[in-house]
């Protein structure tokens, strides 16, 4: 239990710094290279985490990223939405035998293919929500979809690299 909390806390800090210090600079240089990796923290929370706690942690992660991006509420809303959608996506992707609630939904436990599908759905939802809120209207739907598509490609590339490099069990 304690090790799970420690693992997730370290992951939170690492992802936050990665997002806030490195990926943010890339997006500042090339606006269409908006890469997001921090939702991985929400995705990798243990399966037994109570749903309200997932949503609260998602909100906190978003607020923390917002502090780096100086966009109060923007990432928070998208991360809260992602945390909310996590349970729905998990139910949708539930294996025939069900989940072992003591595990985290990782590639190590559930397979790389499963994990990529899981992260792809949630990252797409996250980015779509994020860019919609950023535009704050659906007038520029074309631009929202373009940004979402480009960011999705690069973000998933980073998610894949992260998964292969660290391949966390929890």
């Amino acid at each position, binding site marked *: 239990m304690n090790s799970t909390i420690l693992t997730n806390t370290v992951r939170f800090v690492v992802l936050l710094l990665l997002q806030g210090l490195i990926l943010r600079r890339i997006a500042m240089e090339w606006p269409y290279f908006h890469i997001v990796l921090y939702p991985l923290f929400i995705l990798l929370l243990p399966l037994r985490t109570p*749903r309200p706690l997932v949503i609260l942690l998602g909100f906190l992660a978003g607020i923390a990223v917002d502090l780096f991006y100086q966009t109060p509420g923007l990432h928070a809303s998208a991360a809260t939405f992602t945390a*909310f959608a996590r349970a729905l996506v998990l139910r949708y992707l539930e294996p025939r035998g069900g989940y072992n609630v003591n595990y985290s939904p990782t590639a190590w436990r559930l397979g790389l293919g499963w994990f990529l599908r899981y992260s792809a759905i949630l990252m797409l939802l996250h980015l779509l929500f994020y860019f919609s809120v950023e535009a704050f209207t659906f007038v520029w739907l074309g631009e929202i979809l373009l940004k979402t598509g480009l960011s999705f490609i690069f973000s998933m590339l980073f998610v894949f690299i992260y998964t292969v490099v660290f391949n966390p069990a929890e």
Partner: protein
Amino acid sequence: MRDLFLLFVRYGGFLLFLLLESLSFWLIVRYNEEQRAIFDNSINLIVNKIDDRLQRISDYLSLADINEQLATQNAALLDSLLEQKAFIQQLQNACAADTLTFDTTQAIAVYPATVVSNSIASPNNVFIIDKGRRHGIHPLMGVITHEGVAGIVKATNERYSLVLPLINRQARLSAMIARSGYFGSLRWEGPAPNVALLEDVPGYADVEQGDLIITSGYSAIFPKGIPVGHVTAVREMPGGAFIQLEVALRTDFARLNRVFVLRRPAAPELVSTKIATQQ
């Protein structure tokens, strides 16, 4: 209290989600310039739309009032129009008595017509109007526009009439300097469709640049006083007995559309007098 707690356990995720999303959006609108502007704008749009609808409804409901107002206004305008007409009639009568001309200025019949074909670039320009014999148009009637003299009817058929405009080499018009009363003969040499020459004006005539040229009333075709153009240059002719005036025509022949055909009741008599004299 227990029910409330159970409710939270069951729907807690969703309620928390809504709560935190609301908080996020509040933060966004509160602290982000761009989103805040869009938010304000959207609110404005909605409010304006509602305003617009309400305005339309109230406009519709007040149509009866507006009808009443317009009817009153129409009546007032009609009144003043009739008054003006009576005043003009008085003036015309006074004029006729004054100038001692025969009664040709009075009782001029005016036929409105529309130009259906026109030319301005050839030496023998003509235009055709959509009124003919069946409308009472005959050769040698004058044609004017609201700007001034346009031409003279040359030939007619049942429905159409061919008009010789001032900008035709064959056209001649008796015209005079409005200020001093000296007259001459207006003709056109081309190619510019807005410049004609007033010839046979005596060398001692009082004329300046900018003087208005009007019809003289000596011809059978036009009554006296219809504007023709303005003097733009004065040239002495060889010998010095006569001068030639360059006249900028008032009528824009390049965009003739509505014209009016004039019929003077006394014209046939005058024409026959002239012919008798020439013979």
